[in-house]
């Protein structure tokens, strides 16, 4: 993904002896973004839309991208705890909206379960983290890593519109590299935490559950479990989109997020 503007800056803090890096742009209330299991592809148009009225900080979660690997980490909750410190040190933990994409949505939900004082809302986009009553979260081990990313779109054509017929080598490298870190954090069970529905049941933070209608990676049933577990959640489905809503339909995704925030 090519950078849309060159105005965003790179920031970094040290947490538990490790560098945690992020891209940041815009001004206004904070939106803190946690990326998918495949890593952060850089500054995407969705972030520009959000940055019009917010300070958007896109973290590389520890072990991904420019953030150093905690070799000892074994669970997304470990990452959530590190990020708890990181966003505090970055000064973006007040007047803040936490937005998690896919696997990053799981980490965001773990983080929200720690009752962050400055968290104004939680936005989970196609978030993993809980077991659906029916169906299963797609299993990465049965896909080539590029095929797995394709599965994130509603169709191969939608993938090609974003990444071209064949993704750039550095993106493939990112996806391959990132899935290794993800596999260090979730394996058994794959992509969910049986404790999480109980842990988030006391989270009063207003939550938007934003899902692509044709999500082939994290089925809508996951959103339904989140919706049933969280006391203050709203489910919104983006028509026609796949798992990677923010890439496939950035306008609709950004509109949903900004109007949710505006309505708080």
């Amino acid at each position, binding site marked *: 993904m090519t950078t849309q503007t060159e105005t965003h800056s790179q920031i970094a803090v040290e947490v538990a002896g490790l560098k945690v890096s992020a891209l940041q742009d815009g001004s206004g209330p904070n939106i803190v973004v946690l990326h998918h299991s495949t890593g952060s592809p850089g500054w995407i148009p969705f972030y520009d839309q959000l940055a019009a009225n917010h300070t958007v900080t896109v973290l590389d979660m520890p072990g991904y991208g420019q953030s150093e690997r905690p070799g000892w980490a074994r669970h997304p909750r470990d990452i959530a705890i590190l990020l708890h410190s990181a966003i505090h040190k970055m000064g973006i933990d007040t007047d803040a909206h936490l937005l998690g994409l896919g696997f990053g949505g799981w980490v965001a939900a773990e983080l929200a379960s720690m009752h962050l004082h400055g968290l104004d809302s939680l936005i989970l986009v196609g978030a993993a983290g809980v077991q659906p009553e029916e169906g299963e979260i797609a299993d990465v081990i049965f896909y080539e890593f590029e095929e797995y990313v394709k599965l994130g779109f509603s169709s191969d054509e939608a993938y090609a519109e974003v990444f071209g017929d064949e993704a750039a080598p550095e993106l493939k490298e990112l996806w391959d590299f990132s*899935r290794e870190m993800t596999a260090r954090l979730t394996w*058994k069970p794959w992509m969910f935490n049986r404790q999480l529905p109980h842990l988030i049941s006391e989270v009063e933070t207003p939550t938007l559950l934003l899902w692509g209608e044709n999500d082939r990676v994290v089925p809508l049933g996951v959103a339904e479990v989140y919706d049933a577990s969280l006391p203050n959640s709203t489910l919104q489905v983006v028509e026609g989109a796949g798992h990677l809503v923010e890439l496939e339909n950035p306008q609709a995704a950004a509109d949903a997020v900004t109007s949710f925030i505006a309505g708080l």
Partner: protein
Amino acid sequence: MFVGYFTERPYQDFESGWVGATGREIEDLGMTNGDYNPRIGAELYNRYLDEKVYAEEMGFDGLMLNEHHSTPFCMGGVMNVEAAILARITKRAKIVLLGNVLPIWEDPLWLAEELAEIDMISRGRLVTGWVRGTGRESVAHNSQAPFNWERFQEAHDFVVKAWSTPGPFRWEGEHYQYRYVNPWARPYQEPHPQIWIPGVMSRNTVKWCAEHRYPYVMLATEIEPTKKSFEYYDEVARENGYEASTEHHGYLFKVHVDETEELAEEAGRKYISGPANPFLEGNQGTVRSNLQNLPGLTSRTQLLPTVSTFAAAARGRQSDRDAALAEKDAETDKVDADAFGTYEEQVNKYSIITGTPKTVIPKIRHVLEELRPGNIFFWDGDGAMNHEDAMRSLKLFGEEVIPAVREMGKELDLKGAFEVDTQTGAPMSGD
């Protein structure tokens, strides 16, 4: 020279369409066991055991078994059960397990106990061997791929300690934890059975193996990359203060002997038909490269030259990354991956050796001269070969080939791991 016998024990269902080019797709982890017939399984397990017993009668030093999971090309998912039976029904040959897939064991203490029992029942004939698995094993038993290598090493250290250190002791490791290690079964051999490590691909493993002075057995790899792997072993050995020799080098290769050249060719062609190991060159079947390339299973800088003849040569899609790695790592060993397919080509480059004793013996000699392994295994009775094919070959191995190979071993000074102690370099008595 140590001479062993091996077959991968394929699941052969001649009605299924999987045997021979009858058009039924053989895809790696893509076949349902709804098609598995336990009656056929029963016949095959007994047949393969019978053939092992006959192999011992025919003079083989070792009976090699291997282990794969959820796949028809190898019925040895619970190889230790077969080994335990062989421990009781054979008398002299070593039972060589190449190998148990260490990282997928959630409870390696149980493995230590099983192997100790096998060693006792066989009165000290176990050669134990351990592998990391090919990816499908991690999938089948859901073992976390990024920790495969760490688990291999820790399970190894744990089993060796459980065998050689009087208990009870406590083990609080990164991947394995025990509050009370005191197995009421200890290996017959002191301090424990020899450990041989089979492999094809991981540079890490060769290095680790040489550091431990364990024999490294290359599995049906081509001659040039096999040489390079042995050279790498020797290099690591020198860095660790010893000179590796023939006893540290093992080689498994396909050899079938038959009564006539015609019969030999007919049977030899069966190596590459049927549900034979789809990883290996020329075989039918589609490898799903994502299963070989599980996240974090193999670190990207740690591939041996043989990757070009192994995964890259297999049919089916190949990820760009694998292809690029193969190209990079094999640059000094340019091999045309497309040239693997046919039987004739495999015969031409010694990947399959088949014929009457008269034609087979010089070819074996060529391989031994090139590679100088002290421990060899003949791989036979595989693919679509039936019991009769296997038995004809075993008989001729015993009558003509093994005696000739033993002479070559002496002449070429190829000492095996039961003639020279791989740990000390000292000659061994007995055995």
